[in-house]
C-alpha cells in the first residue's frame, strides 16, 4: 500500500516539476508579456497542483492535507490576480507607446 502511494507521489511530483520546467523555459523564451504569462500560469496551476497532489499521498492526516490544498488554492488565487494585473499593465503600456 505504502509502496503504491510512494509511486503515485513520485509520478505526480515529477510531472509537476516538468510543468514548472516548461513554464520557466517559456518565461525565458517567449517574446512578449502575454505569452510569458501564459507559460507561467501553467507552472502555477498544473505544476503546483500536481506537486500538492503528490504530497497529499504522504500527508499524515486530514488537517495536513487540508493545509496543503489551502496553500494550492491561495497560490492559484494569487497567481490569477497577478496575471490579470500584469496583463492589464502590459496592455496599457502598449497602447500608450
Amino acid at each position, binding site marked *: 500500500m505504502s509502496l503504491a502511494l510512494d509511486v503515485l507521489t513520485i509520478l505526480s511530483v515529477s510531472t509537476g516539476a516538468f510543468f514548472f520546467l516548461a513554464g520557466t523555459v517559456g518565461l525565458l523564451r517567449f517574446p512578449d508579456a502575454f505569452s510569458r504569462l501564459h507559460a507561467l500560469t501553467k507552472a502555477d496551476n498544473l505544476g503546483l497542483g500536481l506537486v500538492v497532489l503528490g504530497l497529499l499521498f504522504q500527508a499524515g492526516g486530514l488537517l495536513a492535507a487540508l493545509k496543503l490544498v489551502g496553500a494550492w488554492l*491561495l497560490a492559484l*488565487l*494569487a497567481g490569477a*490576480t497577478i496575471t*490579470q*494585473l500584469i496583463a*492589464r499593465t502590459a496592455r496599457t503600456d502598449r497602447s500608450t507607446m
Partner: protein
Amino acid sequence: MAFDIGLAILVLGVAAWTIAARDTFAAVIGFVAYGLLLALVWVRLAAPDVALTEAALGSGLTGGLLLGASTRLARTQGSAAIDKPSAIIRRAAAVLCTLVSAGLGAIVLLLPEPAPTLAPQAAANLAATGLGNPVTAVLMAYRAIDTLLETVVLLLALVGIWSLAPDQLWGGLPGRRYPVDRDGVLTFVAQLLVPVGILVGIYIFWVGSIAPGGEFQGATILAAMWIFATMARLADSPAVSRRWLRLVLVVGPAVFFAIGLAGFAIAGGFLAYPEAHAKLLILTIEVPVTLSIAATLALLVGGPPERALR
C-alpha cells in the same frame, strides 16, 4: 546533503546576481528570491520559527518595501554610472571582502566540538514559563528585555520616518493614495483574501506558544493584510495624528512594561512571572504586542505623511 549543497549554491548564486544586476528593480526581485531560499535554509537548519520570520518579514515585507522604493526611484537610474568607484577601489574591496569571508569561514570550521549550547537550560526551564515552544520562551521570558526594547526600536523607527514629513503635511495620511482599481480585480481578491490572511495571522500568532510561530510572524502577516487592503483601496491608512492610532501603536510595549513592572510585586523582579500564571501573563502581553507590531510594521512600509488631512 546533495540537496543542501545545491541549495547553498543557489543561495550564493542569487545573492551574487543581486549584487551584480545592473537594474535595481531586478536586483530587488533577486533579493526576494534570496529571502525565500534563505527561509528554506532555515527549515533545513531546524529553525521553523526563523523560517517563518524570514519568509514573511525578511523576504516579503522587506521585499515589498524595496520594490516600492525602486519603482519610485526608477527615473534616477541613469545618473548612477557617474559615481561608480574606480577599478582600484573595486579590486581592493574585492580583496578585503574575500579576506573577511575566508576568515569567517575558517572560524566556522574551527568552532569547538561539542558546540556550547543553552538548549538544555532552555528546555529545563520551559515548564516554568508554561510555554511549549522554546523559542517563544526565549523571546518572552528568558530574554524578554530584548523583545521589549525591540518593540520600542520599531516605534522609534516609525517616529523617525514620520518626522521626515514636510511641516505642512504633518498629521496627514501616510504614503500615496493607490490608483483606483478599474476592473475591480484587486478589490475582489482583497475582499476574499484579507479575511483569510487575518485568520492565518492570528493563527500563526496563537500557535506560537506551543509550535512554530509567534507574535512577530503573526504580526507581519497582519501587517501585510493591512497593506494589501490599502493597495486595493478597501481602506486607507489612518492619519498619523489620530489618537486611537497612537494608542494602538503604544499599547503593546505599554502593557509589556506594565506587566514587567508588576513583576516586582508579584514575582520578585522586573519581567518575572509567577510560575502559576506565567502562560496567562505572557499571552496577556502577546496579544497587544502583536497588534502594536502589526500596526507599526504596516506604517513603516507606508512611509511619512504625504497627504494633508482634508
